[in-house]
């Protein structure tokens, strides 16, 4: 079908001044009306906002009155409004896939400054669209069923919130957590800013709900190892690591933990500040309530003897023969709430963490100030007894620093203010906060800053240069045995050396070390540093580029508890909407084989990453399974016989788009290609 017989309408958007400022929109639409008439354009119009109802009605009216058979809209990126304009066509009775949206905003007006050149490029882009649209064929969206079960990866506050929202709406959820208990980082905290609620008091009820909920299946001490399928129909493999505890028999009495003779440093829940047994529950309110036995550190696994836990377990729940097992679940949607890891403060050696005993990380301090923590909430130096008389809190440790992480970790300012308050609460120590900027953008956040100022916390604007125990005598004789914080007080313009007893490093938030593998596993993209990329940072902040995979909480980037909780709710809402519809339409971008032309050469067979291509030896032809095909088009490009065609991205469509794009010269004139 050549575009000549088509009746094409071209609609050029001003997008207020977003496009019109750099592209001469009127000229472009006029040009299209005249120069492209030979290519089937029967009408070309421009409008302030094509996406506004007025703009859409314009299209609908023309389809009805002028009998348009194809529509080209030149506006923003198809990722923005493709659906909108397809909708308009559909309402006017035109198959939505006969509409082509070409981008003259993201790809033209916003990235070019020269008006003439931008206008020329806009013309070319439209010509490409016009020639391409002529090759479009009517399509019907594929409808796929949505499995009502949802997988939530990560049992922190974001994951728990998501799971509860969905389960409370009556749909099943699998909640996967790496650690023995859900709860995440929030479970480690004492108070939460700025309200100073007790973290445990508000979190544990939610943990219990999640644990008890009949709609939620917990997979703790587990990891997702494989994901297959597509939106609505994922098949996920969850590896449940052996806990050596029979969950059916265990009552969570904790005797095994009590009797276990081995204590090891707890680098996870206690952030290294405390110890745990080898048979352990990370903390008393753990959910699920039954413990795990940490194999690598267990005497029985090392030496073959001990079994103290087994001897004393009243219900014979200890089972040393347990092995890791794979659980396979079918789900319709997935939410990644994989959270963050704390920056390793040892990497900034001049701050002395790991070298100078009385330098602590923010997470260590959270545990210290927690009444249930290793010091029962007493704020003391590393010796475990001495209360500090002065404390220095250093902001931006490993954040906003190109040597480590360029991003701002968003929560450290408020967390540090919280620490300052807690120290004042628990001790008589003077507190210095060393900051570059105080970032307190949140409800009642700056007010909290004011409060901490009132409480007498001293703020020094300057990024700390170093923490040292080497004194400059005689001047600093009084600081013997203490730490010196050396900093330029930028508001005074002088270098200062401030003696303190304790230093707290507000270590930044980093994506989990395996963030990239996670992204690959779930087929989503993450930024170079490892945060999940949203489908749209503003308008679709919890969806990913991959249909059916959502994200919530710090997996998307550093954020505080309220934000994480709302992320969870948002993701849940998106998913519930789909579940309610039972099925959803997906882009009919698929490859199909024309058996008549297939030579059975099998070149395409090994190219498909989804094994969607099946070869029928009997008929010596290849076939594509549309359910598995994701429409990448690699096989289409590879087929030497041209027997495979990719709907939506057919050779004809792309070849004519190339022709169209090249019809216009750099100066905006129609150019003639001299044939050989």
């Amino acid at each position, binding site marked *: 079908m050549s575009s000549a017989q088509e009746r094409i309408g071209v609609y050029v958007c001003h997008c207020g001044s977003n496009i019109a400022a750099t592209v001469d929109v009127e000229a472009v639409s006029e040009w299209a009306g005249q120069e492209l008439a030979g290519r089937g354009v029967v009408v070309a119009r421009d409008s302030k906002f094509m996406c506004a109802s007025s703009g859409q009605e314009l299209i609908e009216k023309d389809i009805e009155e002028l009998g348009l058979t194809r529509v080209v809209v030149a506006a923003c990126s198809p990722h923005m409004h493709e659906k909108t304009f397809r909708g308009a066509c559909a309402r006017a009775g035109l198959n939505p896939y006969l509409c082509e949206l070409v981008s003259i905003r993201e790809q033209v007006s916003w990235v070019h400054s020269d008006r003439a050149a931008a206008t020329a490029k806009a013309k070319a882009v439209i010509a490409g669209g016009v020639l391409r649209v002529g090759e479009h064929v009517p399509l019907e969206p594929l409808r796929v069923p949505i499995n009502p079960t949802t997988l939530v990866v990560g049992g922190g506050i974001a994951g728990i919130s998501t799971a509860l929202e969905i389960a409370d709406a009556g749909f099943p959820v699998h909640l996967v957590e790496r650690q023995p208990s859900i709860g995440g980082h929030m479970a480690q905290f004492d108070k939460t800013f700025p309200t100073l609620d007790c973290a445990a008091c508000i979190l544990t009820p939610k943990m219990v709900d999640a644990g008890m909920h009949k709609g939620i299946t917990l997979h703790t001490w587990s990891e997702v190892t494989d994901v297959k399928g597509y939106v609505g129909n994922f098949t996920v493999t969850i590896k449940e690591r052996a806990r050596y505890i029979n969950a059916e028999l265990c009552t969570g009495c904790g005797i095994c933990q009590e009797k276990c003779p081995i204590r090891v*440093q707890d*680098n996870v829940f206690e952030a*290294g*500040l*405390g*110890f745990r047994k080898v048979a352990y529950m990370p903390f008393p309110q753990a959910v699920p309530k039954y413990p795990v036995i940490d194999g690598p550190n267990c005497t029985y696994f090392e030496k073959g003897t001990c079994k103290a836990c087994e001897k004393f377990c009243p219900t014979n729940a200890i089972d040393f023969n347990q092995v890791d097992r794979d659980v396979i679940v079918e789900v319709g949607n997935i939410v990644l709430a994989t959270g963050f890891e704390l920056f390793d403060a*040892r990497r900034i*050696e*001049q701050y002395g*963490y*790991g*070298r*100078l*005993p009385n330098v602590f*990380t923010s997470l*260590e301090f959270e545990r*210290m100030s927690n009444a249930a923590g*290793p*010091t029962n909430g007493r704020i*003391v*130096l*590393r*010796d*475990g*007894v001495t209360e500090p008389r002065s404390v220095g809190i250093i902001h931006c440790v490993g954040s906003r620093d190109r040597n480590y992480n360029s991003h701002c970790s968003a929560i450290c300012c408020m967390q540090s203010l919280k620490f300052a308050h807690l120290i004042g609460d628990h001790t008589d120590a003077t507190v210095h906060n060393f900051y570059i900027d105080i970032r307190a953008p949140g409800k009642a956040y700056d007010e909290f800053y004011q409060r901490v100022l009132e409480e007498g916390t001293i703020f020094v604007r300057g990024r700390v240069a170093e923490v*040292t*125990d*080497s*004194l*400059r*005598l005689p001047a600093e004789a009084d600081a013997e*045995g203490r730490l010196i914080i050396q900093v330029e007080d930028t508001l005074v313009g002088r270098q200062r050396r401030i003696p303190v007893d304790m230093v707290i490093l507000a270590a930044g938030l980093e994506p989990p070390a395996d963030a990239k593998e996670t992204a690959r596993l779930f087929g989503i993209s993450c930024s170079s540093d490892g945060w999940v990329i949203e489908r749209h940072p503003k308008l679709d902040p919890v969806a990913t580029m991959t249909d059916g995979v959502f994200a919530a909480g710090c997996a998307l980037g550093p954020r505080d508890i309220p934000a994480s909780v709302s992320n969870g709710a948002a993701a849940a809402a998106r998913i519930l909407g789909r579940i309610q519809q039972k099925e959803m339409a997906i882009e009919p971008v698929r490859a199909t084989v024309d058996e008549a032309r297939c030579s059975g050469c099998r070149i395409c067979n090994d190219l498909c990453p989804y094994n969607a291509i099946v070869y029928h030896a009997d008929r010596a032809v290849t076939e594509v399974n549309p359910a598995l095909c994701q429409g990448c088009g690699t096989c289409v490009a590879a087929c030497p016989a041209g027997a495979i065609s990719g709907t939506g991205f057919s050779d004809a469509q792309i070849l004519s788009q190339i022709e169209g794009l090249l019809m216009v010269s750099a100066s905006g004139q129609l150019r003639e290609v001299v044939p050989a």
Partner: protein
Amino acid sequence: MNRFIYYPGCSMEASARAYADSLEAISGPLGLELTEIDDWNCCGATEYMGISPTRAYTLVSRNLALAEKQKNGSRTLVAACSACFMNLAKTENYLREDTTLAAQVNTALEAGGLHYTPGSVDVRHLLEVIFDDVGIEAVHDQVTRPLGGLRVAPYLGCLVTRPDLDRRWRSREHPQAFDRLLRTLGAQVVDFPPRTDCCGGHMTQISPATGFELIRRLVDAADKAGADMLVTTCPMCQMNVDAYQAEMNRYFKTSYHMPILFFTQLIGLAFGFPAQKLGIGTEIVSSRAALAKIGIEIPVAEAQEPIGAGAAGPPRRPRAKQAGLPMPAMPGENVEAPR
């Protein structure tokens, strides 16, 4: 035999002759074959930079060009003076990183019939070479007179581990390599936090008060840690701490007596060379008293002291008691990592 191209630097021929002599003495036992760059010129220290950066880089590049030309089975250029090392290494890196600068420099070099191909020479400091190529074990094997009982403050100075543009050092502020080398000699290494701090450089010449303060910090820290002497890798550091200590004392009305020797001199002693062959005695602040401890009439008992005494590490500042809170665990930290 480890062959290298060698850049001594000006001070090795004058104020730091002791460094040159001791290096010459120990290079045999260490299996170092150092071929001096023929007709090398001054690296410009930090002075030429203040006149004209471009010319300063050109000045250094002449040495690199000569080194490139001088093929003697090695592409490694060793510098003993930290300042020279820094200038050579930094220039080499910049020429690699910045094609414009490289072009400029080569146009200038042409005037002298020279050319330098960025990346063709690998610039290393003597300490790195002893650590990586000779190896601490090889050093250990040559020790015939362990320096048992000698308490030394390991003073590396700024310019060996900084800027370290090619990231050869795991730690640019608290490296442990130097300590391990000195322990291998049997010396007892004291805890010396300012190990990579500045000696004041040319401040003794242009702003004495500033220079004296920096010298005082070093001498005081060593004194406080109970060190018998400072040990350094840099002529500039040695010169400042040694030659200006008296003036510094006068300035602050203090009476420190803190000798400073080159690490090569200590290696020489541990290898059993006579003190005078190592230029010992040419320092202004005498190390006689300190060295008496390990003099020829060294008590047998002490001689028997196992090599690596004090390998337990420097006396730590107050650490957590058993009762106290644990220090952060160091997962995956390789203690034996070279640096």
